[in-house]
């Protein structure tokens, strides 16, 4: 990789971080500037995104005599509505119902059909042929053809338009229509995750030649836009010609904008909205106790990472790392900080949702502050350790820091908590520099991402500066092998290494928290709420 490719790679990862909500836009812009890119280029890149985290199989749409009733969904305020630039939950939530993707991804991380009903992949992995559903029409009545798909993807990868997806699709050598109903993507190098890339948040199919994608709203999706009032709401009506039978279930869809999640929750309680897709833990707990409200939590692969730099004192002493792990009570943290929502972590990013890879083979040592104290003494810290803990002010991270401080104090580790605004924490790469820090990581469909970006030697965001030859080799195997069993074995070994000596503690995995009023049917929560399928919901 030459230098500028490397930069682009970092940016590519970074923009998905922005999307996952882990990195503020401002911090991202700073990162871009630090890498020597123009501010404009960075700003555009910031709008890119990746595939949805998980998508459980959609519940069967209720059979009936056609769409009826009205569904009101609370959302944050969208900034703009051109699919190519969509970045927030709110924007994607709207667009996902006006337009369609070629493929979707379900809860088991499987690629499932949407506009593309079936596909074939050549043996060399370079040629993808997708067949489109028949009889699909745009809201203006014109039929969907392969040419529309070609136009859409050419737009998304057109380097001259400087769209954020250009990098993602740079590997595509050619897109061609194969008759009216099929499209062929030819890659310049094999990409086992290409179908996931096709389901990128931006890859919504537009009609060929659409002049103003931000305002035209001419999709094939389950709903047509009736009225869009910026900063206020968007009203949609069922698309009677929608190609998936039984969808949408409701006749009217109102997406109402709230600047504040607490206000959205209040609206739900007051009956002004039917569904809130995202909220902080305490509000969720409140709703759990509210009659007439169904609170829904969905596990995700996102987690908070407590990490100590392993390349210098005191993290370069294995005893210190073991001591920290021994001093930590993950169960208590999970209860206190996350109120038992989500899952307890085992110091590895390969969480329980990755069912085939996740392993509890290596036992997590029980909490033992005395042993931790002894370890510290043997490492040359008989009087314990004094450390600054840097933590961004978002989410429950300050609480995590406070609980850790209390737990570690018993082992003689004296933590000074420094809460910083997110932009400061991520700004100027400070988070990669500090010794002890807490970083949030968003949910990914595949575990390899975390290893490659966060833990292998020299990885761009190897914030713990972990460098372990055995780990690196195992990660490389998992990345390249075509043998699922071998990959699973490598991941098991990786989990063992991280429990034994990884300079990281992952105390829990997040849950995605949402709630709706009783009487709503067909709602399936998603790790990334923007990709919720509202068309399946009946009232």
């Amino acid at each position, binding site marked *: 990789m030459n230098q500028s490719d490397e930069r682009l790679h970092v940016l590519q990862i970074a923009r998905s971080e922005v999307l996952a909500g882990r990195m503020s836009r401002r911090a991202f812009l700073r990162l871009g500037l630090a890498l020597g890119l123009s501010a404009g280029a960075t700003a555009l890149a910031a709008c890119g995104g990746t595939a949805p985290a998980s998508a459980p199989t959609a519940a069967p749409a209720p059979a009936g005599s056609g769409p009826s009733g009205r569904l009101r969904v609370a959302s944050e305020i969208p900034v703009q509505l051109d699919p190519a630039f969509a970045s927030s939950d709110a924007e994607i939530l709207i667009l996902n119902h006006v337009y369609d993707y070629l493929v979707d991804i379900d809860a088991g991380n499987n690629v499932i059909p949407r506009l593309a009903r079936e596909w074939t992949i050549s043996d060399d992995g370079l040629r993808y042929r997708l067949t489109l559903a028949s009889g699909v029409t745009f809201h203006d009545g014109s039929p969907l053809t392969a040419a529309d798909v070609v136009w859409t993807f050419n737009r998304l990868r057109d380097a001259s338009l400087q769209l954020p997806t250009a990098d993602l699709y740079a590997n595509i050598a050619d897109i061609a229509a194969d008759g009216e109903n099929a499209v062929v993507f030819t890659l310049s190098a094999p990409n086992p995750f290409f179908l996931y890339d096709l389901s990128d948040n931006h890859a919504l199919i537009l009609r060929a030649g659409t002049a103003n994608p931000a305002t035209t709203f001419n999709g094939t999706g389950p709903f047509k836009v009736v009225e869009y009032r910026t900063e206020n709401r968007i009203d949609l009506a069922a698309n009677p010609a929608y190609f998936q039978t039984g969808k949408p279930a409701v006749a009217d869809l109102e997406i109402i904008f709230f600047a504040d999640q607490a206000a959205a929750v209040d609206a739900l309680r007051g009956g002004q909205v039917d569904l809130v897709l995202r909220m902080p833990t*305490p509000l969720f707990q409140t709703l759990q106790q509210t009659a007439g409200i169904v609170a829904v939590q969905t596990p995700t692969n996102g987690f908070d990472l407590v990490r100590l730099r392993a390349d210098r004192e005191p993290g370069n002493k294995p005893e210190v790392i073991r001591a920290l792990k021994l001093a930590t009570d993950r169960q208590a943290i999970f209860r206190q900080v996350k109120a038992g929502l989500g899952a307890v972590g085992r110091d590895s990013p390969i969480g329980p949702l990755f069912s085939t890879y996740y392993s509890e083979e290596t036992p997590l040592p029980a909490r033992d502050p005395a042993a931790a104290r002894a370890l510290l003494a043997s490492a040359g810290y008989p009087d314990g350790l004094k450390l600054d803990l840097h933590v961004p002010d978002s989410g429950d991270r300050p609480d995590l820091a406070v609980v850790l401080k209390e737990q570690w104090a018993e082992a003689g580790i004296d933590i000074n908590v420094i809460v910083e605004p997110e932009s400061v924490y991520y700004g100027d790469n400070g988070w990669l520099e500090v010794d002890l820090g807490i970083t949030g990581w968003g949910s990914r469909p595949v575990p390899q991402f975390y290893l490659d970006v966060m833990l292998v030697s020299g990885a761009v965001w190897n914030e713990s500066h972990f460098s372990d030859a055995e780990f690196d080799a195992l990660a490389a195997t998992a990345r390249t092998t075509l043998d699922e069993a071998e990959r699973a074995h490598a991941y098991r070994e990786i989990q063992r290494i991280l429990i034994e000596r990884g300079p990281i503690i992952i105390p829990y995995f997040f849950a995605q928290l949402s709630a709706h009023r009783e009487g709503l049917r067909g709602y399936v929560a998603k790790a990334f709420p923007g990709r919720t399928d509202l068309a399946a919901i009946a009232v």
Partner: protein
Amino acid sequence: MNVQRLGRAFFADPATAAGTIIVTVFLVLALFGPLIAPHSPTAQNADLIRQPPSLSHPFGTDRLGRDLFSRIVYGARDILALAGGGTVLAVIIGAFIGISVTYLGGWLEETVFRLFDGLLALPALLLALILLGATGPSRANVLLVMILVYTPIVARVVRSVVLALKSRGFIEAARMRNERLGYILWRELLPLVAPTLAVEAALRFSYAIFLVASLGFLGVGVQPPSPDWGLMVLEARNEFALAPWSLYVPAAAIALLVIGVNLMAEGVRRAISDS
């Protein structure tokens, strides 16, 4: 000045007496905190999360299972020490600069007070946010910021008094005996500035309490897990529906202390202007 008469004037007013009682209660909490608080302010109990007020936890517990009463008691120490320390230092430095620079006059006075005016052009809270943004949040920096924010205010108030005194006959008399600068500044001027300073200090103190609490609330002041009242309000904000007491308790503590100090400040002002 007759101390007894001052005292009588001070307590004659029921509002002042109420303020004094409130502040005294908080002072006692601050001074004897460890003796009064039943628990450590940071001790967590995962089994007693968000307990409503009860006999064993008179103010209830918070989301991490910490005893709110103990946190309020220790928080009193924190806020009084910070606000009080900041006020005292700002008043001392402000008085020093205000008296000496104003008496000396000339370009020095011009420069210093232009600078101060510039600082004062920004609201105190904004200035504090900017400074803390630059220095990073810590107890020492909060103290420093309070000094920077309040010193110009105190100096300016002092200046207005000194300006009026500067041309008085007794100052000219001092010049006519080649009086030492130190004597003029601290023996002649300071006692005359003192009443104004006392009123200003009392007023500043109430603002300082509010500033410390505000900075805590904005997350740039004292860092967790310190039982800072402002921070407690911030942390309890999303808890309101689940554990309303965790918001009410620190908010009421702030309000009560600010009201108490304000009533006292008003009493100081009246007592001094009356005598």
